[in-house]
Each structure stands twice: as structure tokens, then as C-alpha cells.
């Protein structure tokens, strides 16, 4: 049985605590007894191969998905529920203009009507989207949509911000700006949880690193430790860019077998 | 219940009015005819006007309707071969049991209608140009009054629908006895006036003309036409009762 509770005094100060989380569908455990405490301090970066369950873990931590087994405990701040926001790996754009997307998020967050437009405009400007504010969000370019998703989450002033590969579609300058933004947010006390495949980015931002593989949290170590001498052999292999999805057959070079020669 | 007939059995199509169909008469008659001749009879029950349209287009083999003028015109214009009297019943004035216009006390149908007119009691007219509707208009002409106003409701509906409406409106209405006797949703309604010779309601049989409509099953239709006016057919018509009351009177008896 899964239980999601709101504890007034979360265990040793974690904002969100995952306790022995499993996520099982049609007999496969996509998450397998994963435990993780997200403490207010520090930027937690999650890395791991494709399909290792990073996004699942984040969606469960954010409260979008019920785990099959295990507890999620979400803390409070000053007696209020935690203000959370998440930028999805594949952001969903409502069928409205870019600006209306942000305004809708602000409406849901309870921002007073008269201040919504101004807030939305500021958020859009921060991500270089002023020019496209009135375009339908769904015809924006991939990068513009990702920026919009960031702007939308940003505008909510969350206390914990989940970011699932937020700069995967961004150009180098925007990536740089987003990383700086993340740091600023963090300095103002927002807890950052970020998934990335960009090890450079992980190195630049991480305070602590969660390494996942095959639905399990293999290690959770301070960043300095993780990048210099990871505890597990799997993590070391991952950092070297080697294949470690041991449940899969080794990924062969596509050209060798799947290329024009076959 | 009808006798189940093999799919390839010979059959004729009989266009008739809803009142005849609803009375249940055909279910009483047709099995006997089918048993005797092996001919199945398919009854298409529609509004009187629609029945005549079916006749004029040759979409049936024989008609059984109750609008003498129209029937005679059909034969005169060569759509039908001949018309024979089959049976008759009568129209009756239906109304709420309380009888606010006191039509039950009237001596003639004209007087009864006059009372309704004067009381401005709700009256539901078929308003659909059917045989019954034309009879009703004829009777109003008899009174010399021209009904109109909120109490006089032209419904544009079949007999059954009109009775359903009248029942819920506590209105008077003119109905043929066959439909009335087989009608179940009477609520507060009763037959309040009957018996005036003006309320006579004759039914005629008309086989369609094969010269005009070569596809018509003239032979089979003629057998029906003959049978229903034969002694056997006439006796069967006279023996059809609901609650021990006859619905139709065979014409030969008259």
C-alpha cells in the first residue's frame, strides 16, 4: 500500500521524503524500493541511463503519480503546504497563446487577477519570449516551448522546483542563462531537483548527485565525491560514457548492424 | 399472433389507416384468410392521406380506408378497379367524465358540438386532414359555427396521439369507435355522445388497378377483396369484440 502524507514536521527536515518507493506495472518494477530524502539545502541532480526511472521518481516525488508501494512524505513550510513546480521532460502546452499559458498557471496558483499579466510578462521576458508571447504556444519551436515551460514554473515562485532535463532543447546561451537562474533561485532558498544527461551541467550545478539505474537508486553522494571517485562501478562506467543497462542486450553501434549495410 | 408464413409465400400489401390497425381487427381476420388461400397479408397502416398517396403511386395491392369521397375519386381516376363497402362503425364524442359542456344531454351531435362551442370547453381536433378530421369539420358545418380560439386545438396528429393528448388536456374529441375501444390511456375520458346517424363511418376496399400499375398482384389482391366481402369475411368482422362489444359492423348486414 502506498501512503502519501503531509507531515507537519517532516522527518529530519526533508522537504520531500521517498520511503522504499516501488512502481510496478504489468509485473515489471520500474522503480524498486527507492528511498530518497530531499533536504532544503543543496541542488540535487539525478543522473542515470535512459529508462532507469528518473522521470518516474521525480513525478512520484512531485505527487503526480502514486507509487505501487512505499511512502511519500511531503513537508510544510510555515504551516502551509509546500509550493512546488515542475518542468517536464516533454512540456505540455495548453492550446492558448504563450502568455495565456503563463497566466493560466498564475491563476491556478492564486495570483490576484490584476497582477497576473504583469507577472506573466516579466516571466516571459526573463526567458527571451517577449517576442513570441502572443503566438499559440503549440507552434513555438522546441526550445521556445521548453523556455515557456521554464517561465511558467518560474512564475510560480516554488519552494521546491523539479526540473526534468530542462535545457535539453535550449541553445547554449539559454542553457547558460537557465543555469544561472537555477543558482539564483537556489540562493533565494528554493530547493532544486534536476535530472540531466549533460554531465557538464551536472558538474556545474550539483551539490549532491543521485545515480539511478534499472529503477534503483544506486548511489546518492555529494557531488565532489561522485565525480571524482564514485562509490559504485556502475556509476564510474556511466561517467565514462559506457553502457550499463545490463538488463538490455548491449547497445550495438547502430551503423554496424542497423545501418545501410543490412 | 399471426401465423408464421414462409418467406417465399405469396403475399399482398394492404394499405390501411392506423385506426383499423390499432383496433386489432387485422390480427383477427388475416390468419383465417391466410389459412384458406395461403396468401399472406402485409398491412401498412398510415394516415388516410398517406394511404391514398400509396394508392396513387401503386405501392400497395389493395386499400382499406374510410373516406368515401377520396375512395370514389381513386376509382374514378383509374388508380383503383372498384370500391366495395366492407364494414362500418361510428364516430363517438369523447370527453372528460365531468362533462363540463354537458354534451351527454344533447339530442344530436350538432347540439353537442354547439354546447362545447358555447362552453368554450377544450376540444382537440385531429387537424390532419384524415377521414375523422374531415368528418369533424363536416359536423361543425352542420352546426353553422366556425370553431376557433384557445379552446379549439388543432393537433395535426393520428387518432391515438390525439386521444393521448386529449386525455391529458381534459378535452373533448371525436374518435372512431374502433380506436376508442382499443385505446388504453383513457384516464378521465369517457364516450359521452353517440348514436347520431351523422356519425356513420363506412370502410371501403379498393384493389389497385393492374392496368395502371402492372406490378400489382391483382389476382391475389382480388382474392382478398372478394374474401373480405364474402360471408366468411363478413361474419368474422362481426365477431370481433373487445370487452364483448363489437367494433365493426359488416356491411352486408345493413
Amino acid at each position, binding site marked *: 500500500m502506498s501512503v502519501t502524507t503531509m507531515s507537519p514536521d517532516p522527518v529530519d527536515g526533508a522537504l520531500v521524503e521517498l520511503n522504499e518507493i516501488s512502481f510496478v506495472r504489468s509485473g515489471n518494477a520500474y522503480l524498486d524500493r527507492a528511498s530518497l530524502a530531499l533536504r532544503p539545502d543543496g541542488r540535487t541532480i539525478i543522473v542515470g541511463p535512459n529508462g532507469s526511472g528518473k522521470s518516474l521518481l521525480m513525478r512520484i516525488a512531485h505527487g503526480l503519480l502514486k507509487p505501487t508501494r512505499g511512502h511519500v512524505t511531503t513537508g510544510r513550510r510555515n504551516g502551509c503546504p509546500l509550493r512546488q513546480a515542475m518542468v517536464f521532460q516533454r512540456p505540455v502546452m*495548453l492550446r492558448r497563446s504563450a502568455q495565456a499559458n503563463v497566466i493560466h498557471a498564475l491563476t491556478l*496558483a492564486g495570483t490576484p487577477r490584476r497582477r497576473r499579466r504583469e507577472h506573466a510578462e516579466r516571466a516571459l521576458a526573463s526567458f527571451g519570449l517577449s517576442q513570441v508571447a502572443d503566438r499559440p504556444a503549440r507552434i513555438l519551436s522546441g526550445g521556445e516551448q521548453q523556455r515557456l515551460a521554464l517561465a511558467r514554473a518560474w512564475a510560480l515562485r516554488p519552494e521546491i522546483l523539479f526540473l526534468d532535463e530542462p535545457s535539453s532543447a535550449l541553445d547554449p546561451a539559454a542553457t547558460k542563462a537557465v543555469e544561472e537562474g537555477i543558482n539564483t533561485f537556489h540562493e533565494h532558498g528554493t530547493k532544486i531537483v534536476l535530472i540531466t544527461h549533460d554531465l557538464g551541467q551536472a558538474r556545474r550545478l550539483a551539490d549532491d548527485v543521485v545515480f539511478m539505474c534499472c529503477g534503483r537508486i544506486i548511489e546518492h553522494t555529494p557531488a565532489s565525491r561522485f565525480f571524482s571517485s564514485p562509490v559504485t562501478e556502475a556509476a564510474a562506467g556511466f561517467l565514462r560514457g559506457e553502457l550499463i543497462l545490463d538488463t538490455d542486450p548491449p547497445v550495438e553501434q547502430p551503423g554496424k548492424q542497423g545501418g545501410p549495410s543490412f | 399472433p399471426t401465423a408464421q408464413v414462409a418467406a417465399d409465400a405469396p403475399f399482398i400489401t394492404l394499405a390501411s389507416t392506423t385506426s383499423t390497425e390499432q383496433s386489432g381487427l387485422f390480427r383477427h381476420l388475416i390468419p383465417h384468410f391466410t389459412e384458406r388461400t395461403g396468401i399472406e397479408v402485409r398491412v401498412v397502416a398510415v394516415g388516410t392521406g*398517406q394511404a391514398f*398517396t400509396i394508392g396513387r403511386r401503386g405501392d400497395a395491392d389493395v386499400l382499406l380506408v374510410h373516406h368515401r369521397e377520396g375512395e370514389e375519386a381513386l376509382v374514378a381516376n383509374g388508380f383503383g378497379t372498384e370500391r366495395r363497402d366492407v364494414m362500418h362503425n361510428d364516430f363517438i364524442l369523447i370527453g372528460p367524465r365531468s362533462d363540463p359542456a354537458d354534451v351527454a344531454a344533447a339530442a344530436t351531435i350538432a347540439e353537442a358540438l354547439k354546447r362545447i362551442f358555447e362552453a368554450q370547453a377544450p376540444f382537440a381536433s385531429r387537424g*390532419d386532414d*384524415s377521414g375523422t378530421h374531415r368528418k369533424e369539420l363536416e359536423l361543425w358545418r352542420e352546426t353553422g359555427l366556425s370553431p376557433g380560439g384557445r379552446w379549439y386545438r388543432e393537433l*395535426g396528429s393520428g387518432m391515438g396521439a390525439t386521444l393521448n393528448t386529449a386525455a391529458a388536456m381534459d378535452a373533448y374529441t371525436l374518435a372512431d369507435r374502433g380506436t376508442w375501444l382499443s385505446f388504453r390511456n383513457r384516464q378521465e375520458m369517457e364516450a359521452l355522445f353517440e348514436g347520431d346517424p351523422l356519425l356513420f363511418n363506412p370502410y371501403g376496399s379498393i384493389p389497385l388497378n393492374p392496368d395502371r400499375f402492372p406490378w400489382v398482384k391483382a389476382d391475389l389482391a382480388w382474392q382478398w377483396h372478394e374474401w373480405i366481402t364474402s360471408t366468411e369475411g363478413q361474419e368474422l368482422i362481426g365477431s370481433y369484440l373487445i370487452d364483448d362489444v363489437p367494433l365493426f359492423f359488416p356491411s352486408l348486414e345493413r
Partner: protein
Amino acid sequence: MSLIATGDPTLFSIVQLSLQVSLTAVLLASLIALPLGALIALFRFPGRGVVITLLNALMGLPPVVAGLIVYLSLSRAGPLGQFGLLFTPTAMVIAQTLLVLPIIAALTRQAIENLWEEYREQLRSLGSGRIRAIPTLLWDARITLTTVVLAGFGRASAEVGAVLIVGGNIEGVTRVMTTAIALETSRGDLPLALALGLILLVLVALINGTAYLLGEITSRNMQ
């Protein structure tokens, strides 16, 4: 036929009543069925499959049956008899609403369920509860829902069985296009019946065209 040729005022009032009754019924039905369909789309509860099946099945509610139900409820002896609504346009609106509601609700349920699959996590992440998500989803599915409502409008405007029973087809009071068509048919005046049918279809087409244009305008700006 002269009814049409002379631009008869009777025809005009029949047309007017037709549109009034059908549009009111569709409006009422939409007000209930759009949120209802969305609710069923969004919530998981025991017996949901049965509810969906029933809703789908009620798209096949025979008009005569709907008419009878309303007739029995509104008739003098019925539970709502004291309001004297039988044989009034109001009764026709009620019957058509009853008939059209399941159609709009069932099709809305499907449309919103499709959109919710896409939006669910995003909206919940933004703090939108399921109830709060309903207006968002209805708005974003507006093009599809326009077609859905038009399907309901088609059913309402074409319908004759129910309005005949609860309206009584009273000339000048509850006669609408479809009951007039049925009347002319039973009178055997098929050309007039067809002509009236054509007029009705043209009117329905005009309303559909307006809806289409409005849809195009709102969708051109926001896909």
C-alpha cells in the same frame, strides 16, 4: 405548397418555434452535459465502466420513450402535473434536453478523456484539481466540442417523436417543423413535407455554418 411560396407567416412562426425549442434544449443540455461528460472523463470511481456504458446506451434513448417519460411526469396526474407544462414549448424543450443530453455528455466524455490524457500531469503539477481542470479542458477542446454540440443540435432539430407526444403538435402553439413534416406526410402531401424538410435542413446548415466560422476564427489564433 403555397405555405412556402407566399412566405406564410404561419411558416415563419413554426420555423421560429422550431429553432427556439431546439436551440434552448441544446443550450440547456450543453450546460449540463459538457461538465458532466468532463466529470466522468476525469474521475475514476467504482462502476465507472457501467456509467460510461449507460451514457453511451442512452444515446439510443428512443424519442418516443423520452416523450412518454416527460408526458407522464408533466401530465395532470404526474409528479410535476401542477405546473401545467404539458403541451407547451417548455415541455418540448424538456423532452429534447433529455434526449440530447446523453449524446453531448457521452461524446464530451470521450473528447475530454483524450485531452486529459495529454494534460493530466501538467495541470496537476500547476496545482489544478480535477474540478478546476474542467473549464480548462472544455476550453482547450472547444473545436471538438463544437462538433459534439452540433451533433446534439442535429438530433434535437430533427427529432419528432418526443415533441409530438409532449407538445401535441398544436397549431399555433407547439407545431414545429418536424411535426409539420410528419403531419404533411400523413396527409400524403409528400412534396410539401419534403420542401419543409429542405427548409429545416437549410436552417440547420446556416446555424452549423455560423458555428464553423466562429470555430475557425477562434482557432486561427490559438491552436
